[in-house]
């Protein structure tokens, strides 16, 4: 059974067809990458999967459930957690608190718990421990008390991933996680993604950094002008003439 299935997704913005008849299956484990030139419709597809946008036609199936057009917070509750292309941190909060917010779905308690700190203490200790563990895993442990806004860009990206992991996703959607990272940071990110996938979380990422994609992805889907033009293993995609023309060919032309 697949974890996520896109069934003939089409999205039109006025006269512009951002996505046309995209069908795709994501396995229950491993890392899948969606690549494609700018404007190919990758982020639109992510927004549709995560509920921030609705398709003009087609269905999104998560496990056995049809989640097409459901509110983002309800999709998150089912275990599908995303990050954003432009990092969306809670800037004023500390690094640690950002990750703690990520535990929201796995904790309980409202107003009553706020007034009974003793009762809440054990749960808070668990939240704290889980958040600290994620900070260690992402190498941010020594920045725990710094406001998120004070982090350098690369660490902001890592923090957003740590925060998403705090929600214990079944499927993690990452929108260009390597954008703005230097070589060393990208290598660390690849390591982190492999560890996440090895721990049983399926990962779907949009990425421009081909070294990262070829390095970590087991499956690659290629979008071009809103159409899925290829889908397969890295080796298959690399040899696909359509892909070379649409994507890699373009890059070569730019280099020349």
């Amino acid at each position, binding site marked *: 059974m697949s974890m996520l299935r896109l069934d003939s997704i089409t999205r039109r913005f006025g006269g512009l067809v951002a996505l046309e008849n995209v069908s795709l299956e994501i396995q229950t484990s491993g890392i899948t990458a969606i690549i494609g030139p700018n404007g190919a419709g990758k982020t639109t597809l992510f927004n549709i999967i*995560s509920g*921030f946008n609705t398709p003009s036609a087609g269905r999104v199936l998560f496990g056995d459930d049809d989640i097409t057009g459901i*509110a*983002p*917070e309800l999709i*998150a*509750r089912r275990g599908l*957690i*995303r*990050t*954003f292309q432009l990092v*969306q*941190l*809670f*800037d*004023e*909060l*500390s690094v*640690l*608190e950002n990750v*703690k*917010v*990520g535990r*929201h*779905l796995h*904790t*309980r*308690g*409202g*107003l009553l*718990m*706020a*007034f009974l*700190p003793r009762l*809440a203490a054990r*749960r*808070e200790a668990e*939240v*704290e421990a889980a958040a600290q563990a994620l900070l260690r895993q992402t190498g941010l442990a020594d920045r*725990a*008390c710094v406001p998120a806004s004070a982090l350098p860009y690369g660490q902001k990206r890592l923090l957003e991933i740590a*925060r*998403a992991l705090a*929600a214990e996703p079944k499927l993690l959607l990452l929108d260009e996680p390597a954008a703005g990272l230097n070589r060393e940071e990208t290598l660390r990110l690849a390591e982190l993604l492999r560890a996440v996938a090895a721990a049983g979380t399926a990962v779907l990422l949009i990425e421009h950094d081909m070294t990262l994609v070829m390095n970590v992805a087991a499956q690659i889907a290629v979008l071009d002008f809103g159409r899925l033009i290829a889908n397969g293993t890295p080796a298959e995609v690399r040899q696909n003439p359509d892909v070379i023309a649409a994507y890699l060919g373009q890059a070569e032309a730019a280099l020349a």
Partner: protein
Amino acid sequence: MNSLTSTWAKRGSNPVLLAVWGLASALVVYVLIRGGYLMSVLQIAAIYTVFVTGLNIFMGYTGQVSFGHNAFAAVSGYTSAVLTATYNWEPLPAAAVGLGGVLLCALIIGYPTLRLRGHYLAMATLAIGLIAYDVAVEWGSVTQGYMGISGIPPIGIGRWTVASDRGILVLLIIVAAIGMFAAAGIRRSRLGRAFVAIAGSENAARALGIDVSHYKLVAFLISAFYAGVAGSLFVHAIGFVSPEVFGLHMVVLAFTMLYIGGIGTFVGPALGALIVTLLPESFRTFNEYQDLAYGAVLILILIYAPGGVASLPKLLSSSSRRKPA
């Protein structure tokens, strides 16, 4: 290890803030012993501390905006006043009915208006405050219009009442302190984290499974409850209510206190309430230039401490850290 507790401990042990707290408590003790006119000034400051602490939960923590919380103070204030002065109810059950009414009103108002954002939410809430004022003026048979209601009994149970100015001030300070620590408890809890997440980024909050519209409504209800408590306290402490008491002036004062004190902080509302109620009094000697001096000080505070007085310690420590480098 426990940065959550340590950030609070750090804030508490900051020498600048400790000095401010020391000064504030010295003032309160002095006024309690000395008595006189300043007593009623501090009573107003304590009542506004409750009001602004509630507003801080909605505006500071959750990042929303409301120009209409005076409406909630008016609902419970007038309920308290009418039930006790006209129908001879006991103050506590009257206030309880008033607070129930406040929560009901906040639910009915909040559900549709919280779909609005930014300026639109501001406009809608402003309208609610103006409507409350007009109702208080026009519904003469109950509210006695511009005349207002006087002879409202002080807070108490049965024969035991808090009637002396000193007693009222102590009671108000206790309620204000409870309100502040309850707000701090909320901020540190899962609920408070959901609030501040919404203020940080609604999209990111939703992507983590936080039901944004639900938590906005909860924040709105909590802050309306604080406003209601402030409203009831006011009429019982002063013994009089008129539409002007809960008019637009209340909103302007509360906003000034929130921003002067420090929006989103624990001590901000109390500091703001103290400063904004005491400043005009301390410029009495300037006679006709009193308002000018008051305005100038407010502007100076906002220029040199844009985060409010509560942000001063952080400001000072970061500038002293920069110097040696």
